[in-house]
């Protein structure tokens, strides 16, 4: 043994120490630090999402409004790319070399070993040409995806559109959506998103370091199968929808038709409209940008977002409430000198026409402003002039039951409320107690602060057709193959008017078409009840309104038509409504007493002059590239609806100023 024997302990000590250091480090990364397990999962587990087909949407006769069509993405996995003929490839995709480099770089940046899209949404025809040569370019592959297609290109605003989810959608969905998924942005696509999208399947795949499939995790125990989206049957009738859209060509306005016995919306035209196919596929970004630039705002859903003073079309409602309150009977007469003095406020009849002695029915038929102002005056002062506010509130409650001033709860996003002023509003404007029936006399004839959406107008009509109740209007008739109908659509909403009061009013409305203001639009052989309206408008010519339902007995369809800036209701709105009604009831169109034909209306250009047309705030939309176009589009959409609100306020402001000035030249027909 030599003298350095004790050094064995030093050496052993060093060995032990260093091995313990290794053990300590192992203890840390294996036991304490949980990150590595997670990283390991991320390494091998690849969640493959199986996107189900989105549900198709049919019309009420099960004709297809929207279905899915295969489009193709060219995808690239940069790691698998081998040298190839770039020139030929660029030529195939019709891109230049710089663009190719840019896209390839982007793909590499995303991940060298994962697929990323190289060219998006090629149509089947465009793809066919590329497909046969794709095998010459290793690393490039195709991936089908299903996009919406609209065989008849109708009902764009009803159907809405889908778009790739944005970050906000992903956050809000609690992890359901992933980048690249589609989500309904507007219309039915949005309001029935949860039904239409179906349920996505998830496959937990094990992959190796080169992303090659190696098997199912836990033999597929955690996998779920995808479930296709439900089929929606909408209440729309494709025939009258198409006719309506054609009739409204080159006009700004809406057509809403409701089946009174169900509340189903048969026709939902918002004009100007657009071809929904434009918002699908390769060129959608550019197309959307173009549409957003349209000053008449095709994305503005006029049936539920635009609001108009109902004008004379409000008169039947006025009469009904007065009868229910016991102010008048159908036989009550009024002698019209061509105007009416409410306090010191004079209301003129249209063209100062003397209607003479009128009762309820003839007042409706001849649209006598004097009669309805007189009735309104009596109604407001029933409890004495001092009680005007509470009497008004009572009246307002009765009107509200018809669905005015609040959302009807249509199964569509962004429904407008219209406006039904409150007593508090007048208290604020004229000071409490500072206003009387004469102050708000315009309400009697559907003017003043009163604003309604075309949907609300149609719904009032459906209520009259039903003699006192309505079903909640809706656009989706039934959901899925089992054709489930939401229970809320089977509930009758009573409006608080006894059914016997309707007949006199309906008599008047029938007279409107038979011999009154809309006599020119009488449909031979069909008894139609209607009411014209000419809504005053601070931005140019009056809006042409017409509401009607038919046939009188056992009503099948109630229609509201608004044609903006087109003057009297009888001139444009009434014939359009009559064509819709006849097409729906008979599937053909006969001649009209005034000789109006659908072709004449289709060819007429009633677009308001742009310098006079209220455009809302200017939209800034540089259609730079496709990726940003969508976001811009979203914000532009918001702006459009803000614009709508603004427009409404303008109207409100306009009319109350009009009230303040006590202009005495109200003329209603």
């Amino acid at each position, binding site marked *: 043994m030599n003298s350095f024997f004790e050094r064995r302990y*030093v050496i052993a000590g060093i060995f032990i120490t*260093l*091995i313990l*250091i*290794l053990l300590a480090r*192992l203890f840390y990364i294996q036991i304490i*630090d949980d*990150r590595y397990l997670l990283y390991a999962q991320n*390494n*091998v587990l690849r969640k493959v999402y199986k996107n189900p087909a989105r549900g198709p949407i049919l019309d009420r006769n099960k004709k297809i409004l929207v279905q899915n069509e295969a489009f193709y993405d060219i995808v690239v996995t940069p790691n698998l790319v081998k040298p190839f003929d770039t020139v030929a490839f660029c030529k195939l995709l019709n891109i230049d070399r710089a663009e190719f480099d840019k896209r390839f770089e982007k793909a590499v940046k995303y991940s060298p070993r994962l697929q990323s899209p190289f060219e998006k949404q090629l149509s089947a025809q465009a793809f066919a040409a590329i497909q046969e040569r794709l095998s010459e370019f290793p690393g490039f592959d195709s991936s089908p995806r299903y996009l919406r297609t609209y065989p008849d290109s109708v009902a764009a605003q009803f159907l809405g559109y889908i778009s790739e989810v944005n970050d906000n959608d992903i956050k809000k969905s609690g992890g359901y959506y992933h980048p690249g998924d589609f989500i309904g942005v507007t219309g039915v696509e949005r309001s029935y998103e949860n039904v239409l999208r179906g349920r996505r399947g998830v496959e937990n795949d094990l992959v190796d370091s080169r992303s090659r499939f190696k098997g199912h995790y836990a033999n597929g125990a955690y996998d779920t199968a995808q479930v296709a989206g439900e089929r929606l049957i909408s209440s729309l009738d494709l025939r009258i929808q198409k006719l309506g859209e054609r009739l409204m060509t080159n006009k700004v306005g809406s057509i809403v038709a409701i089946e009174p016995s169900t509340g189903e919306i048969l026709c939902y035209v918002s004009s100007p409209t657009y071809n929904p196919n434009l918002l699908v596929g390769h060129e959608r970004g550019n197309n959307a940008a173009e549409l957003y630039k349209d000053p008449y705002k095709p994305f503005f859903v006029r049936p539920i977002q635009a609001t108009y003073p109902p004008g004379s079309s409000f008169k039947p409602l006025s009469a009904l409430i007065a009868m229910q309150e016991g102010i008048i009977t159908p036989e009550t007469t009024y002698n019209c000198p061509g105007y009416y003095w409410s306090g010191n406020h004079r209301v003129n009849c249209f063209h100062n026409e003397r209607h003479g002695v009128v009762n309820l029915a003839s007042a409706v038929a001849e649209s006598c402003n004097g009669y309805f102002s007189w009735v309104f005056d009596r109604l407001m002062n029933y409890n004495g002039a001092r009680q005007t506010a509470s009497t008004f509130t009572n009246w307002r409650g009765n009107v509200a039951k018809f669905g005015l001033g609040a959302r009807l709860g249509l199964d569509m996003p962004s429904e407008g409320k219209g406006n039904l002023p409150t007593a508090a509003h007048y208290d604020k404007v004229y000071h409490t107690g500072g206003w009387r029936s004469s102050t708000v006399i315009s309400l009697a004839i559907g003017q003043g602060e009163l604003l309604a959406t075309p949907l609300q107008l149609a719904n009032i009509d459906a209520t009259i057709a039903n003699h006192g109740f309505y079903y909640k209007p809706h656009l989706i008739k039934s959901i899925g193959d089992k054709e489930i109908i939401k229970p809320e659509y089977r509930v009758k909403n009573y409006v608080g008017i006894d059914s016997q009061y309707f007949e006199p009013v309906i008599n008047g409305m029938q007279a409107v078409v038979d011999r009154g203001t809309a006599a020119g639009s009488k449909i031979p052989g069909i008894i139609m009840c209607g009411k014209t309206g000419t809504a005053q408008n601070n931005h140019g010519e009056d809006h042409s309104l017409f509401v009607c339902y038919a046939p009188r007995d056992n009503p099948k369809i109630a229609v509201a038509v608004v044609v903006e800036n087109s003057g009297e209701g009888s001139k444009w709105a009434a014939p359009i409504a009559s064509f819709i009604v006849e097409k729906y009831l008979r599937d053909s169109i006969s001649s009209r007493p005034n000789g109006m034909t659908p072709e004449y209306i289709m060819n007429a250009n009633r677009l308001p002059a742009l310098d006079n047309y209220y455009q809302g705030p200017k939209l800034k939309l540089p259609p730079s590239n496709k990726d940003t176009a969508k976001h811009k589009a979203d914000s532009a959409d918001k702006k459009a609806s803000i614009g709508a609100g603004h427009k409404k306020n303008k109207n409100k402001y306009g009319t109350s100023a009009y009230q303040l000035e006590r202009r005495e030249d109200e003329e209603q027909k």
Partner: protein
Amino acid sequence: MRSRSNYSYQQQQQRGFFFNVDWAIVFVYLALCTIGLLNIHSAVYDEKHPSFFDLSTDYGKQFIYIIVGSVVAIVILLLESRFFSTLAPVFYGITTLLLMLVLVVGRNVGGNQAWISIGGGFRLQPSELAKLTTCLLLARYLSGTNIRVTDPKSFMISLAIIGFPMLLIMLQPDAGSTLVFSSLIFVLYREGVSPYFLILEGLFIALFVLTLKVNNLAYIIGALLAIAIIILLLFRRNRKLMPVILAGLGICVAFVLSVNFIYSKVLKPHQKVRIDIVLGITTDIKGKGYNVNQSKIAIGSGKLWGRGYMQGTQTKYSFVPEQGTDFIFCTVGEEWGFAGATVVLGLYLFLLLRIIRVAERQRSTFTRVYAYGVASVIFFHVIINIGMTIGIVPSIGIPLPLISYGGSSLLSFTIMLFILVKLDSNRMGIVY
């Protein structure tokens, strides 16, 4: 024990070749080989060739290597102890020639010219043999009469014996194997070289890391000066210490400067990156740091008990590179967890301490020096290899003894250990 020493050498031979064998070492050897075989099987499992005995797979080959190793072990036990000490210079000479030859005819694998093809798909790695023969020659030299490693001349010759194969291996260039030889400092230390060398080596490692991490020469040299002054002030009565401290300071400063020079001028970019990753200077997970990161993920995901035999996903799906050879410990860590890793490290520690115990019970200096050589080499391999897989040592490609796949490595460690077992079985005789 006493009585046994009376038996003559001849008599011991007659008791058969398992006489006096240290069964503990044999047991640990077999355990490590088995662990290695199982983990290679799991790491490079091929569904088409599931059998352990399929020669087209790495585990099939490893199985053959283990059998060959066992035969070689038995042959070694049959040989005379004197054989190894006598022929040590010859072995050393042959490996030196092979190391030169490999530079000429060697096959280039992964940037290193370290392999000589010997037909049948088998390759020889002379650097593995060089570790063994260097240990033998060093033992032979230091056991010579009147050789004291404390003598400058003997010390220099010892360093030359170690340094020559280092130089040749560095030319391949195989940094890992080169560094293995530096572990033989433990042998010299045990034989009497001043502990300052050991301290200096530790100090160098610390300074090496600091230099690269701080990357500011002024700070480090300033700090060294300050420490030197403080020590001088504290021990100002001890005159003898002064030159030692000053010399140490000079060496340290020179070392820092040379590290800086080598790092910035001599090292190749990929070597720099490896060092940088370990020191945490760069964390390039997708590029050069990929291996170590994936290796940590595999080991870390094993948790306490591991995923179980053949259940590891990281190694099976080849996220970990070199999974059969240098990164075999990932499979251990992932499939057997902290428990398995502890068992493996425990076995190594037991083996190392056992070798030290064996070394110290020898009457023969040759056996003792050789034993320490074996212990040092195994120790260095274990620390560097496992340290690399868990990211505390730069990735240097050296195998995990007896566990990593590879015939040269396995055979060379088998021969190393069984020469020791043979020498130990003859511990009562004196071998020159």
